[in-house]
């Protein structure tokens, strides 16, 4: 599975770095490094809904506060 996080200007200011770091930690703590690939991408063209995150192409809108919920509700069940 590939999770892509937008690192463009707008999403950066909305906290994409914190989401990247949280996800990196969650993936590692759950021993999923061989199942989940994390990647960055410049502006996904959907800045109003930032921080933009896609999971295998499906778009999600996150804030740093709900990274864990997103991981538990939208990522873990898909594996």
């Amino acid at each position, binding site marked *: 599975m590939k999770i892509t996080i937008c690192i463009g200007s*707008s999403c950066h200011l909305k906290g994409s770095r914190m989401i990247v770091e949280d996800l990196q930690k969650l993936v590692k703590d759950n021993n999923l490094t061989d199942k989940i690939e994390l990647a*960055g991408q410049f502006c996904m063209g959907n*800045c109003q809904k930032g921080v933009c995150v896609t999971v295998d192409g499906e778009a999600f809108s996150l804030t740093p506060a709900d990274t864990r919920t997103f991981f538990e509700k939208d990522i873990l069940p898909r594996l």
Partner: protein
Amino acid sequence: MNDLWIETGWISLNHVGETLCGDKVEIHGGGDENLTLVLADGLGSGVKANILSTLTSKILCTMISGGIPLEECVATIANTLPVCSVRQVAYSTFTILQIRNNETAHIIQFDNPATIVLRKGEVFDYPRTTRVIAGKTIWESTFPIEVDDLFIAMSDGAEWAGVGMTMNFGWTRDSIADYAMANYLPENSAKSTASLIIDECDRLYGGRPGDDTTIAVARVRNRHTVNLVVGPPENKEDDTRMMNLFFGKKGTKIVCGGTTSNVVSRYLHQPIVAALDYPDPEVPPISTIKGVDLTTEGVITLAKVLTYAEDFLDQAKLAPMWLTRKDGASLIAKELFENATDVNFFVGRAINPAHQNPDLPINFAIKQQLITSLAECLEKMGKHIRLSYF
């Protein structure tokens, strides 16, 4: 004229407790023009020394660059400098470095430590003659320059760094030459070479310089062009025209901005590979596109580059941290401040709808202002700048 470029940079440390420096550097020309650099060290410290060295450097620089014979210049100084009421002398030492037609170096020195010349990173023992003008013994040297020659002029505060504190007899010119050789890298700029040496002087003085200390460096280098594109064009149909012009230029290519990267990626038919490393948490990660030397985020990164540029021009700041850092802003700073002699900016005027959000802490309308300010800073660093808008 050849393809050489003369780059200069200098830094002074003030005598502890003084707000004015008694050393003064005056520079005329440089780049692809004739260079005249004068380093003067006024007798004593504080305001008196500052007046003496300011007069000396300004008069010498103006007269010498105007082609007036040395005898007349020295006579003018002797007749102009105010006489110190305590010591009954008017006195300022000086070093004059001239580089003509990017071919010949002419060094004239009076009582300053002898200028160190590094050629291919090794100390170059240049020929010297002496002559007496108005009772002053003056050293003169003339020799052809080569690419990568490094001229390091100094006031005696550098030689004496650490005397009676960390060293018995101070640092000495020979040790400074050894230090400059040991830290020599062909790509180090004049300014960072001066910073490196002055940092060491400051360390030896324990942060409390016992004399005004100045290092002025001139470096002979090849010209190098850096091209930076930021922002997509106002009209989408101009994308290809902008890209043709950008990639048609020789030199390093830097792409700033997410949307701009997408335009470049489409043009080159190469994917954007983004990293997730944050060497500086304030600066978004860089990406790579095959065919582009550096790809970064846009406005946040450039705002950081501008603060680095302003700090770099501020004489009071010592060795900058962007020299060794790997985040996007530091990499751009190094490329623009250190490597470039000529910079071409390609600025797109398209408005990004996401940037109109009033909740965001950066006002994105400042993008063009950012580029203009950065261009001004680079001009102050002596670089040739060209701005094109699309």
